[in-house]
């Protein structure tokens, strides 16, 4: 699966933790792809933690 100049094995990502994936992104993808970690994780099937919105309305 191609992202920029990087080809990634699309198999087995559902077993990865989000922290491990972020390490992988920083070490092998950062600066070489235009997509964010969340975008690539979504395509590969890595479980992305849900971000809780903070309600600042008063």
């Amino acid at each position, binding site marked *: 699966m191609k992202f920029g100049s990087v080809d990634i094995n699309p198999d087995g990502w559902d077993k990865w933790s989000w922290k491990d994936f972020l390490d992988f992104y920083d*070490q092998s993808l950062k600066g070489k792809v235009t997509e964010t970690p969340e975008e690539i994780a979504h395509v590969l099937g890595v479980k992305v933690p849900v971000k809780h919105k903070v309600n600042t309305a008063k």
Partner: protein
Amino acid sequence: MRTFKFAGNGASKLFLTDVKGVIVTKKNTTQTIALAKTSAGWSTLLNPATTAGVLGTYIDFERGMEPKSAAPEMTTSNTGFEEKTKDFAPKFVGHAYISWADYLTWFAADTQEFDFTLVLNNGDLMSAITSAGAQKGFCGRLFVTYDLPKPGGAEKQKACPFDIMFDDVEEWKNYQILKTDFTRKELSALAPVGVNIEVLTAYATGTGVVVLKATKRATGEAYTGFTTYAQWEVVSLKGDVAGAATAIDAAQAALGIYSVTFLNGAAKLTDDFEIQAVTVASTHITYLSNVLNVPI
């Protein structure tokens, strides 16, 4: 079993043409005689669609071939009666028409057992036949020579010697000449083109990335075709239970340089591992690298 009967003399007194090459296959690799007569049959063994399917290759002995076979043992009894008391399996040294870089890839095969099907000048095969009637190479052992480059002249052509010693004289008693539908050069063309890979920047245990360089054998010209992760195969692992190419950055492919991430799942590899790179075009391997140890 072969029963002797007087079988006549042919009108032609032609010599059997020279041996000019050998197909080296893994032990006990067999195929039907019908397939062995076709390049399609050999293509299945020499350049299939996967490296796991590769069961052999072809070595050209255009640079020379010297039989070294021992004469049969003849013994004279104390009564003066002389007879043959032992046969020896043939052996020879073939001087391969390959580069020094190709020869290096054979060092790991020294002393190993293979089956050898001899290829005659006209493309016909000199082959053993199994008891079930299948084609099989003669069983034997292969030896390489670790030596300095030859200085020149006739010795120069002997730079890549293969000593091949056959093990079973019984196979030779029943050998057959198989008339093929291909030429020797067509057979030679089946073997994948060899590419050299080397480590440019060592495996980083913090990232799992190793920078590798691929060049065409002996010339050093960049090979630009190993751009996908699936082309980099882990052949063996020394200390890890699993490992594979997870990603590859081919931004410098034009220079033959590839940054490949090898991981064991999400973990980094912790000990040496061996890799091989391959290009498959349609259903056949077209480029194949040496096996490279990546030290950690």
